[in-house]
């Protein structure tokens, strides 16, 4: 009798909605692919034909420059056609619903929709309602999986591995999709994650996501191999919960003074855009430990990987 070994497909997801829904193997596949695409970006001719004939639609309901541009460049480097739709009007307030917009884009024969939306769960809803692939480019406070991936990719490139690393995430955890994607991704790969923020900005039950909570920033920085500094989202409506900006900088800001007590080679990450002097000092943001601009470049590579694998995925009919 011959053994029938059924080979599991390397990538089996129609959509990328969050790192919570991926396995360690899925994440590593995206990171490895991202690593190999990264090299293309340093060529003088920065284009490969992998997605020639595919169409990627960027559907952004929230203002965003860097994520939208990063996806656009990623798609173009793979030779896909890219359409950008930006609307600051939330679907419920005016005009077409998100589902209807999605179905129309599907009828226009696009292959992938990259969606950014202010409502948590919007990408999941869209994914249920269309057969083409959905990439979540940030939904409310829920997840921003490609940001999580690019942070992890940057860290892995810098330190060689993720397993066993101590990573601290500082800032508004409660309202941060970046924090959630980082937590799911890092813990799946075996990192030890600590979150640190004023208590009002630590959401209830966060420990169940497999992280520790530090009240004191010096505790969070003390042993950390890397720190991910979140942006104070000053435009959000939960402002009342935020401490005064100067107060925040004093208590939770990442400064030279504070880093003196940290590991010498601590890696400093920030998803951008930076509020200089609020969550991080300029010196640190621009200093030797900072990988903030590498994150931006790696973001293109990992988004190329996401678009590449989603385009290989089998579709439900």
């Amino acid at each position, binding site marked *: 009798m011959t053994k029938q070994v059924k080979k599991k497909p390397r990538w089996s997801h129609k959509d990328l909605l969050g790192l919570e829904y991926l396995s360690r193997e899925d994440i590593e596949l995206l990171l490895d692919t991202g690593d190999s695409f990264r090299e293309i970006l340093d060529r003088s001719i920065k284009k490969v034909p992998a997605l020639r004939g595919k169409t990627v639609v960027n559907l952004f309901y929230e203002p965003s420059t860097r994520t939208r541009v990063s996806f656009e460049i990623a798609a173009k480097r793979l030779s896909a056609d890219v359409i950008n739709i930006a609307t600051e009007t939330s679907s419920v307030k005016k005009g077409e619903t998100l589902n209807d917009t999605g179905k129309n884009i599907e009828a226009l024969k696009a292959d992938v929709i990259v969606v950014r939306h202010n409502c*948590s769960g919007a990408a999941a*809803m869209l994914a249920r309602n269309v057969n083409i692939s959905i990439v979540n480019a940030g939904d409310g406070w829920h*997840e921003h999986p490609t940001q999580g991936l690019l942070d992890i990719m940057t860290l892995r490139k810098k330190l060689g591995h993720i397993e066993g690393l101590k990573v601290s995430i500082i800032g508004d955890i409660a309202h941060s999709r970046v924090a959630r994607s980082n937590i799911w991704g890092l813990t799946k790969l075996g990192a030890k994650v600590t979150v640190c923020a004023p208590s009002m900005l630590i*959401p209830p*039950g966060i420990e169940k996501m497999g992280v520790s909570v530090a009240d004191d920033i010096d505790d969070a920085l003390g042993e950390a191999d890397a720190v991910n500094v979140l942006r104070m989202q000053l435009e959000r409506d939960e402002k009342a919960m935020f401490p005064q900006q100067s107060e925040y900088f004093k208590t939770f800001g990442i400064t030279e003074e504070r880093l003196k007590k940290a590991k010498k080679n601590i890696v400093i990450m920030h998803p951008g855009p930076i509020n200089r002097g609020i969550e991080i000092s300029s010196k640190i943001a621009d200093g030797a430990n900072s990988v903030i601009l590498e994150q931006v470049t790696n973001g293109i590579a990992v988004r190329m990987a996401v678009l590449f694998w989603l385009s290989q995925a089998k579709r439900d009919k």
Partner: protein
Amino acid sequence: MNLLIKNGLVIDPANKIEEVMDILVSGTKISKVAKGINVSSDTVIDAKDKIVMPGIVDMHVHLREPGREDKETVATGTKAAAKGGVTSVLAMPNTLPVIDCAKNVDRLKDIVKNTAAIDVFIAGAITVARSGKKLCEISALKNSGAVAISDDGSSVDSVEIMSEALAKAKKEKLLVICHCEDRSLSGRGVVNKGFTSTRLGLRGISNESEYKRVERDIKLAEKSDAPIHIAHVSCKESVEVIARAKKKGIKVTAETAPHYFALNEDAVLDYHTNMKINPPLRGKDDVEAIKDGLKKGTIDVIASDHAPHTENEKEIEFEHAASGTIGLETTLSVSVTELIETGLMSWSDLAKKMSYNPARILGIDKGTLGVGCDADIVIFSPEKEWVVKKKNFVSKSKNSAFIGKKLKGVVEYTIHKGEVVYKL
């Protein structure tokens, strides 16, 4: 017209009956309950291996008419009720316009008279337009036929207005039904507060926002010595508060809905908006506390909180979607599956929670199979299984939290005032 139901397991807690018997219906009334009734009858129903219970009295139903006939009408809602074994409903007043004056009660009574398949009892509002600002004319509501008052969907925030409402309701012998929610605590929350709200990145609704208001309303009821009924109890602390009040002798009764003992917050994890309900689906501890409260009698009533919504209101972003699940067609089966099959309750207990108790609490002449009573009867197969499917709902809206679930207990006949209003 005679109707004879043979050999069913008759469950009638009012008369302490739980045995195989026959029931003879003459006209609209039950005329005989005994073993081996041998009379010639126009219709004979063989109820062997089936349960014969008083028709369900669902004291928490949104029929949406007048005003939101796109969601449900008295006609479609009562037809759905009949399919679920329900023979009496209490219609909640949050319609358009709100049932906040005698004229609007009369208008609804007309619709009911012309279109309802079963009995529809009417709850009036506590405050005009349910605004919480100005008390309705409670005596006028009573005189026009309302059997209870409630601002369901909202809580009356003002202590003064709530106290006044309780005093007036006591005088008029009207039941006050409380939707207990402190909006200053629940705010714009859409799911249970805790790991679920954190994981989903949605605003949370704490248990506190419910039980703090339960505490307050019970205190006010104690002060005015008026009976109150707590609607849709969802959390552990509320059950504890109610248990303590009952022990103290305060006239409080309480209800829960099937989704609070059959589902927990994990059902929301993929943002399915049929799972968006207010109060929200709670934690596993809460679910256990609700079951325990039902078993121990702290919670008197199971009611559906049937809340129909159109697809347009449900198939949108979670935080913008309407809250609620339909329930008239699933309440009995979910209860059989979760409470009888698990051994938590007896058939008599179930008949009490679904029929006898709500009838007593509302002061309506329903909920028993006694001779001379209205022949409101449900006959169902307790062992038969079915899978809840969207396409099979009679209700105009299909937003059920139970779609896809396999349930036990299939209604075979629903008889309302001697007439078969539903037959499988």
